[in-house]
């Protein structure tokens, strides 16, 4: 692969990666948010794959395949299943025909509205570029020049986590944050050592399983997955 083609493809993948995170802020349907998250997982796998091809490292290509399977396949599947449980429970309980429009599958009232969220995303991206300047200067290659994209997704993930009220939207926010960190690791240093990568993936998978179960319990206990209604504990 020629150097310029590699750079273009890498920038394309990074662009798709960032765009997916921004569009998550725009959409309100949780199903659409999960689809976007899966797309972002594909973009992340593409970044790893391109780096692996460029550096002729087979282990990196295998890691890329694993990341694609986990972040574009398994994790979105788990969240979609949790979503389906919430929807069918509600349909049985209230016998609604129009359950697809149930409150549980929509982010009805995010704490910050869509226009302000998109502006914030722009500001966060600028902030990421400012913060990442010393990181790029240390070793200016095509990969590290794209590094601020990873940091921007980390910040957007945090923003989603803080401003979204549905439990599952917060889970997606956490996963965006994690995708951003993984992308940063790939762009900065072609990924962390394999044993760490494995451990991190395993931890993320378990965390999502735990959060999925907790979502069900939150609904059992509070009758909704609106995290803002969790106000029992305070001083």
């Amino acid at each position, binding site marked *: 692969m020629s150097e310029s083609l590699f750079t273009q493809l890498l920038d394309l993948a990074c662009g798709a990666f960032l765009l997916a995170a921004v569009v998550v802020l725009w959409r309100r349907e949780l199903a659409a948010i999960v689809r976007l998250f899966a797309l972002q997982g594909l973009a992340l796998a593409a970044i790893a794959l391109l780096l692996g091809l460029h550096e002729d490292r087979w282990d990196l290509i295998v890691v890329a395949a694993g990341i694609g399977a986990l972040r574009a396949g398994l994790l979105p599947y788990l969240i979609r299943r949790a979503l389906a449980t919430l929807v069918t429970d509600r349909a049985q309980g209230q016998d609604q025909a129009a359950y697809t429009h149930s409150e549980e599958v929509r982010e009805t009232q995010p704490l910050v509205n869509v226009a302000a969220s998109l502006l914030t995303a722009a500001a966060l991206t600028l902030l990421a570029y400012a913060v990442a300047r010393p990181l790029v200067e240390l070793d200016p290659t095509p990969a590290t020049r794209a590094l601020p994209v990873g940091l921007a997704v*980390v910040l957007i993930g945090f923003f989603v986590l803080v401003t979204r009220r549905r439990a599952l939207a917060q889970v997606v926010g956490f996963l965006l944050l994690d995708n951003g960190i993984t992308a940063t690791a790939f762009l900065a*240093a072609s990924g962390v050592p394999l*044993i760490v990568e494995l451990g991190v993936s395993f931890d993320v998978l378990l965390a999502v399983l735990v*959060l999925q179960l907790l979502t069900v319990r939150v609904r059992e206990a509070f009758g909704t997955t609106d995290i803002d209604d969790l106000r029992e504990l305070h001083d």
Partner: protein
Amino acid sequence: MLHLSQEPALTALLLTAPVAAPLVVAAGYTLTGLAAQRRPRPVSAARREETRRPQPVVKAAVVSRGTARAMTGADDKGEGDDSVPGKPVAAVRARGRHPADWAGLTSPVVILACASLLAADVDDGAVAAYSGLLRADALTVWMLLVIGAVALIACASAPSYLSGERDADRATGRTVMGVPPIERSREWGSYHALVQVFLGAMCLAVVTANLGVLWVAIEATTIVTAFLVGHRRTRMSVEAAWKYVVICSAGIALAFLGTVLVYYAARQAGIAEAWALDWPTLLAHADQLDPAVTRLGITLVVLGYGAKAGLVPLHAWLPDAHSQAPAPVSALMSGVLLSVAFAALLRYRVIADAALGVDFTRVLLAGIALLTLALAAGLLLAQRDYKRMLAYSSMEHMSLIALAAAIGSPLALAAALLHIAGHGLAKATAFCASGQILHLRGTTKIGRVRGLLARSPWLGALFGLAIVALLGFPPFSLFASELGIARAGFAAGSGLGWTTAAALLLVLVAFAALATRATRMLLGPARKGDAAVAESPSALWPLVLGLLACAALGITTGPLGDLLTQAATVLERP
């Protein structure tokens, strides 16, 4: 002294055993639980079905019998499945007949034994195994000893706590959020397995030299303890569990980003991929790390592991999780989990000091310490719940340790490590005692626990002594360590002197708040009609043990003195 380091196989065994033993015990608990169920379907399928349908009486009874066997560990060949369905099996068994509850004590004993054997090896450096993945120096051994000692108290208190919970379930027939007590009793079966995995993860975090594996282990503790925090399934505990997982996972993700940046700096400094996250290698090459990248990385690491250590700004999970978890788990979380996360911070601090000079981490840590201390003292003043009161006291003590790390002189570091041990022992005792108070009075409100000393003198006295230890009175070791931190602070120059003075003022506020609340709980006449409760020695001896250890450590560090000095040396700038 006997040196074992000549035999690599033995070293590897000593390093592996603290991690492996709890995991093996956990596997044992899980397997006996599964085997005793004798059901063709996997547990998860059964569970899903039961949570969907509220009325599977027959099925649930069989499950509860399975759990009963799992807990007693008894061979169930003699019994058929022909007993009356729905008969409350749990009620047949007398109180305290749960031998399997005691099997959990194996792993603390193994951890303590390995730590003491390793102590002989590390007096002239460090030992490593598996090409440097596991490594023990004096700091590792010290932390292993603390984990083992606190785990011993917590695991020894677990049987009486669990039988108290089972009694409470049975007495009230409590159906919490539609979950029948029978299923809850099955959940207690997984309690032991989760606690053991929790112990294993903490030991791994301490014995690994790889900063990436360290992160994986600390994140694993969050995941494992999530269900322990939310075990009651009330609105409050579900909320606590949700906050705990979200805040800690997101916070610690920051630490991973920091780790990645440090790795990037290390790779750019020419360290090979396999060694770029190895702590000794990083320390040796710290002066070659790029300062700007390292500064960003270290800031993220401090915020991230600070979240797990209960420091500002990501501390909000701590009082909720500590007040909702079962008492022995609160003891473990407060006593060691916080300090394991802080030990990770201490390791990074050495690298940062070598790469950036001491001022950077000093300002960062001192600022965080003061903010945390102010917050904890302020919230202690308005506290009405005694478990939350203990949680905020943990934040107070962690911020003192952070202050000592900011000072960074040998005296301050030794005092910080001593404080970690003393706080672990005293807080574990206090939390385990609070679990028994909860069973006795059925409330966590301070105002409704009065006359504890009059009604149950032993428990009251032990709880009171634990609070006295936490307040920093002699002979308990917190007195010595707080004195050490104060002396080191005033010796370190005017800036840190003022910081220390402000910190001491805040500690005084926290002292007053804690003392008045504890006296309100302990003193006063017993209510009319309350007979003195028979106190079982089996529930009290772990508490006595914890207090004795804390007091002994305060009077003389004895053979541990050398270890403490060596551990402080590990943390000094090379």
